[in-house]
């Protein structure tokens, strides 16, 4: 069979085969590309131009498809040259009957560029996938960083708090312990220098009072240290029983004084009982110490359950949980509320008359140990309210 010259040299590959895989016709373009002469191909098995993969594909897919539907379009295969190099080719195939014999006709074009584009696309896809996975890793890292920032914030708050406490502690050591020492020195000087018996006795009384002050400062510092180093021995405790104990203890510090308490039934809370007794004892002692002259000491206690954000240190973070709000209200002499923030500082006294300025610092420490909040409000000559907020947590 002779091909038209135009078709022989057309810019496409042409070949046809019999059903048993013999090459019947090839065009010049194909021969040129594969490096064979027509004679080397015609009458040979297609294996000569089909590499192994193409052979398998031809037998399992292409040929059955051709037999079934008489055509197969846009089939991507490889042909091989005389030098066994592979050339990617896009084929259209049709099955025709010529002279009563089935003939399979193939037209193909070389698709080197398409292969290159495909390779580029695959490479780009891989890059994109890699970038995406790196982005996921980055996001995870970001989230972890955020968590660390939150932890850092809490730690910083803690360090700040501890630093402040340390400063107050230093002040207590340098001032509140030095002061009685200095006075001891002055009063003992005076005792040595005077011969007057009355003066002598007065000076000794002063000396004893200063010693008592010193003892009280020391025991206060001891309590403070005990509360700093002491982990909560928490359990479910009855607040009513705590109040009862605290009342007895605070009254024992003021002989002859009876503290009246008006209270509603209080709930059980999860807390350290000893610390809670100490907390209420200090608040009650203040109510007794700073009652109006000539009046009986009286406190009212109220309790409510409220919802509060449990995140106190981190901005823009909210989780509302139940808190027990306890208010202890007295009708004592009160103090100027402008200075209420100082009330919780160690050895800070807002009244010069009595007290060592320690009770509320200890109260704050106890409340901190229980992850709660404490605040104080006061109106001079009207009375003082101490408010406690304790998280309601189960065991």
């Amino acid at each position: 069979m002779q091909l038209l010259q135009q078709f022989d040299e057309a810019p496409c590959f042409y070949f046809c085969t019999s059903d048993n895989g013999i090459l019947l016709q090839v065009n010049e373009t194909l021969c040129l590309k594969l490096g064979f002469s027509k004679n080397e191909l015609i009458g040979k098995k297609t294996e000569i131009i089909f590499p192994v993969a193409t052979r398998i594909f031809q037998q399992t897919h292409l040929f059955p498809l051709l037999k079934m539907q008489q055509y197969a379009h846009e089939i991507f295969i490889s042909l091989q040259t005389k030098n066994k190099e592979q050339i990617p080719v896009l084929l259209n195939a049709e099955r025709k009957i010529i002279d009563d014999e089935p003939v399979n006709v193939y037209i193909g074009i070389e698709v080197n560029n398409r292969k290159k584009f495909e390779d580029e696309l695959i490479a780009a896809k891989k890059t994109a996938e890699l970038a995406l996975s790196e982005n996921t890793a980055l996001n995870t890292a970001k989230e972890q960083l955020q968590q660390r920032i939150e932890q850092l914030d809490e730690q910083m708050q803690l360090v700040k708090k501890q630093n402040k406490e340390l400063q107050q502690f230093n002040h207590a050591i340098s001032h509140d312990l030095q002061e009685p020492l200095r006075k001891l020195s002055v009063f003992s000087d005076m005792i040595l220098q005077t011969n007057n018996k009355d003066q002598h006795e007065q000076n000794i009384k002063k000396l004893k009072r200063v010693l008592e002050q010193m003892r009280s400062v020391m025991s206060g510092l001891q309590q403070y240290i005990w509360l700093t180093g002491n982990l909560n021995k928490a359990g479910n405790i009855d607040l009513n029983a705590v109040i009862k104990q605290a009342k007895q203890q605070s009254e024992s510090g003021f002989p002859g004084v009876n503290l009246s308490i008006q209270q509603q039934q209080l709930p059980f809370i999860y807390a350290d009982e000893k610390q809670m007794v100490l907390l209420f004892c200090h608040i009650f002692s203040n109510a007794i110490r700073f009652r109006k002259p000539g009046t009986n000491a009286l406190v009212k206690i109220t309790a409510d359950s409220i919802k509060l954000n449990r995140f106190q240190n981190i901005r823009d973070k909210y989780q509302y949980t139940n808190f027990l709000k306890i208010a202890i209200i007295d009708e004592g002499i009160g103090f100027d509320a402008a200075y209420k923030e100082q009330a919780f500082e160690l050895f800070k006294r807002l009244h010069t008359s009595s007290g060592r300025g320690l009770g509320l610092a200890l109260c704050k420490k106890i409340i901190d140990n229980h992850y709660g909040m404490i605040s104080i409000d006061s109106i001079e000559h009207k009375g003082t309210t101490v408010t406690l907020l304790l998280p309601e947590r189960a065991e």
Partner: protein
Amino acid sequence: MENNKTILYVDDDEDDVELLTDAIRGIDPKVTIAIAKNGAEALTYLQSVQKLPCLIVLDLNMPYLNGKQTFDKIKADSSLQHIPVIVFSSSANPSDKATFNSLGIDFITKPHNFSAISEAAIRMLSNC
């Protein structure tokens, strides 16, 4: 010495108030000593009194307004800033002393013996 002089002594420590008052009166019985227990009381006194004191003796460690805060308020008030101030404190903090000395303010450390209290009183009266 001029008669009817008044010294304002601002201190929350009753022992020191008694000791210094006795010492000043022992030297000059005619001096009036006004006592304020903290800075807030001192400012109230200064704003209400007709005849201003010739000297203000300031303790540093006090509740409400402390000595430094009180000092700042006095010096910021044009009607009070001319009154001489002596700091009388047991503060062991060297920066406290340096701060006041740099402002030209006499800083007397509260004495550890009885005779030094009289010396402090003499130093105060010489500023009055």
